[in-house]
């Protein structure tokens, strides 16, 4: 265990006497916390999970790495001190960032780190009282959160200390603590709420949707905030002018900050201060009093749910088809019977059902939406007539739209290789498959049918509606190029069975990521150059279509020797 954890363990165990009086077994408490902190230290953290290499050496000091990263994030928050002309406004923005980042990190951590369902099997059968267990959990959460909050708040503390004097640090630290308590309450309430409205089995799925949602919002605010800040109006922005601001918790804390630093007894500031004192304390009391006792119960529901989702044993005369008509039609249009069609359907279903895949791909869909939004509405130069006349930035936006969506396909195609259940790929190795390429082409076609077709339809309808039939040649060239890019990516990078790899190739992913940005960019640039020359556009479309055809054929004909067909055990 590293020094940081040891230090925290020592601190939280200082009031041991009080714990004892509360009827808590301090030795057990220490044992649980000790084990938990070791576990934390050996777990790849959420932020660099993706970039983590195959565990050549075991992870040992995850804590320190996470703290550094978090500190870096905290630096970004300093932006808020350059907005507005008063303390309340600045701190409302600061605390909004703070709550948002803390909440979004915690929402992920709560499922993976803080609520470890193995606890049920391992700790519950032991003679540990619920009180001890809950306190251990709370203290673990406290340590975990402190390890986040400290580095997160540190940059602001340094800034405040230098700019406004060391005395400002006391109210700031105090309020940060209250804000943190409040955020914990929010997460807890959210968890309890989710557990109330859905079944425990769906719990993790819903949490992961929240994570996706947070990731997208995070990206959006990262993109949008700097743009908004440029506007001069913001410098004189005063948040107090809005009444609805009372509904935003960060405002209460910001008001308290102003109150504590200025000591002006205005009704607004005093009210803020009262609210920000009472609400966190009250909410934590609610958590302890009402949520904690039922928490273990709810948790055992998450793990002990195998009884409630027993398969339906309804005997049907005619076996119900496992594939919808739409899907089976699609599979007939795009694939040949046999391995290719099986792979098409398999990939379709896996991409719909695998949480792993959705977690990786859906955020990138969101990023593209955000980007398109900025593209269309962020620039002042944008005019609808430009698109309609295909002049000025209209051309660029149209091409941007088409080629940016190819990014979605590239992400999906390369993500399709990975799965948590990679071991299930033994099925490809024991069955007589003459050409593994068929499996790969089926999978790639499935991705294309699932993600490319809807995109193409939407783009085509929008373009035809805005511009009219004159855009058709360019539309076709764009679509075929997009298809070509996807198939080429597939040909080059998919050299293994779908869903058969462990996700760990950080390096190659990075290089592929660069390529997948550069190549569509280059092609998009070329397309832009020939945009107005109709004969060239038409000829290129035909060439691109032929190239696609060959590419798909090449994928289909990949032989055993050409792919990395080693079963990963």
């Amino acid at each position, binding site marked *: 265990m590293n020094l940081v954890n040891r230090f925290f363990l020592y601190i939280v165990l200082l009031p041991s006497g009080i714990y004892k009086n509360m009827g808590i077994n301090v030795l057990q408490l220490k044992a649980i916390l000790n*084990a938990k902190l*070791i576990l934390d230290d050996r777990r790849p953290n959420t932020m660099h999970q993706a970039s983590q290499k195959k565990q050549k050496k075991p992870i040992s000091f995850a804590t320190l790495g996470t703290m550094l990263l978090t500190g870096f994030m905290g630096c970004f928050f300093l932006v808020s001190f350059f907005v507005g002309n008063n303390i309340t406004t600045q701190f409302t923005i600061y605390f909004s960032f703070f709550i948002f980042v803390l909440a979004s990190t915690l929402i992920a951590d709560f499922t993976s780190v803080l609520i470890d369902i193995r606890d049920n*099997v391992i*700790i519950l059968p032991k003679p540990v009282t619920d009180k001890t267990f809950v306190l251990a959990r709370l203290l673990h959460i406290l340590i975990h959160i402190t390890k986040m909050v400290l580095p997160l708040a540190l940059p602001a503390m340094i800034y405040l200390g230098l700019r406004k004097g060391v005395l400002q640090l006391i109210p700031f630290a105090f309020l940060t603590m209250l804000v943190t308590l409040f955020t914990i309450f929010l997460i807890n309430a959210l968890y309890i709420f989710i557990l109330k409205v859905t079944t425990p089995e769906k719990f993790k799925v819903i949490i992961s949707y929240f994570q996706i949602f947070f990731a997208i919002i995070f990206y959006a605010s990262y993109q949008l905030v700097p743009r908004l800040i440029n506007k001069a109006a913001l410098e004189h922005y005063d948040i107090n002018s809005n009444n609805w601001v009372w509904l935003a918790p960060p405002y209460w804390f910001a008001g308290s900050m102003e109150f504590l630093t200025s000591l002006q007894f205005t009704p607004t500031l005093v009210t803020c201060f009262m609210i920000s004192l009472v609400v966190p304390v009250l909410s934590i009391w609610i958590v302890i009093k009402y949520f904690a006792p039922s928490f273990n119960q709810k948790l055992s529901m998450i793990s002990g749910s195998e*009884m409630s989702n027993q398969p339906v044993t309804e005997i049907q005369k005619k076996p119900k088809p496992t594939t919808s008509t739409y899907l089976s039609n699609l599979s007939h249009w795009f694939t040949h019977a046999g391995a290719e069609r099986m792979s098409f359907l398999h990939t379709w279903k896996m991409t719909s059902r695998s949480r792993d895949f959705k977690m990786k791909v859906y955020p990138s869909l969101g990023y593209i939406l955000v980007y398109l939004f900025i593209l269309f509405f962020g620039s002042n130069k944008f005019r609808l007539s430009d698109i309609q006349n295909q002049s000025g930035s209209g051309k660029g936006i149209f091409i941007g739209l088409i080629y940016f969506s190819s990014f979605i396909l590239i992400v999906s195609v390369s993500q399709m290789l990975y799965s948590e259940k990679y071991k299930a790929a033994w099925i490809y190795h024991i069955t007589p498959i003459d050409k593994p390429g068929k499996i790969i082409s089926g999978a790639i076609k499935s991705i294309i049918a699932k993600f490319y077709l809807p995109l193409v339809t939407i783009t085509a309808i929008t373009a035809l509606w805005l511009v009219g039939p004159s855009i058709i040649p360019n539309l076709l060239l764009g679509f075929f190029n997009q298809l070509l890019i996807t198939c080429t990516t597939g040909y080059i990078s998919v050299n293994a069975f779908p869903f058969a790899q462990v996700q760990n190739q950080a390096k190659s992913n990075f290089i592929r990521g660069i390529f997948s940005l550069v190549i569509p960019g280059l092609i998009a640039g070329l397309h832009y150059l020939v945009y107005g020359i109709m004969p060239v556009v038409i000829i290129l479309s035909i060439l691109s279509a032929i190239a696609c055809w060959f590419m798909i054929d090449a994928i289909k004909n990949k032989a055993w020797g050409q792919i990395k067909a080693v079963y990963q055990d």
Partner: protein
Amino acid sequence: MTPIIQLKNLHKNYGDKQVLKGINLDIYPGQVIGYIGPNGAGKSTTVKILCGLISDYEGDVLVEGFDLKTDPLSAKRKIGYVPELAELYDVLTPAEFLGFMAELYELPKEMAEDRIHKMIAAFGLEANLNQRMDTFSKGMRQKVLIISGLLHNPDIIILDEPLSGLDANSVIIFKDLISKLAKDGKTIFYCSHMMDVVEKVSDRIVLINEGAVIADGSFEELQTAQGNQSLEKIFARMTAKDSLSDAADQMMRAFEI
């Protein structure tokens, strides 16, 4: 003699589905109970209730006279549990994990360390004592779990399919261990699908089906009541709805056009 475990009219529902429909059992010290039943009969639910994993049941469960509902801690101190799935914190080393377990049972440190060493050595895992368990085979993890269930020298040992993943030699060691523990006065609650093992190790067999006890007695008593057959045959006769050989016949007929 007073029973060491008493289940009185034990009921458990999952929503509308009744999993346990009034189980009544008195288990006496030193008995090796073979607790068997088909999938979904309520075996693991019973085990989970006994271990304190599930607490919202109806009826009474007394362990050495302590009610699991009112005094779960005293009951849990008496029980050692070896779970079915290899659920453990596998980034810990066996030394760390077992040390952690020992502290939860409040064993004195020296004693715990001594025991852990001896038990690990007995299973031939000395070399792995300080290795993280994520590299362990299923059998090695199972051995660690078995040790974690015995560490605090419990009076009652609940084993849920404890042999899964163990190699033949370890199985021999473990079966031997069960009979020696029983001789020592420990009560063993052995839950398994392996009829041949249950037949050999247990001196009382409890067969449950659809949430109720349908047979209870020594293997010999079962044989007298159900005909002189192996436990496997008796089990099939009492729990299968249709004839099992019919199922095999149907399977074979599926090849015909």
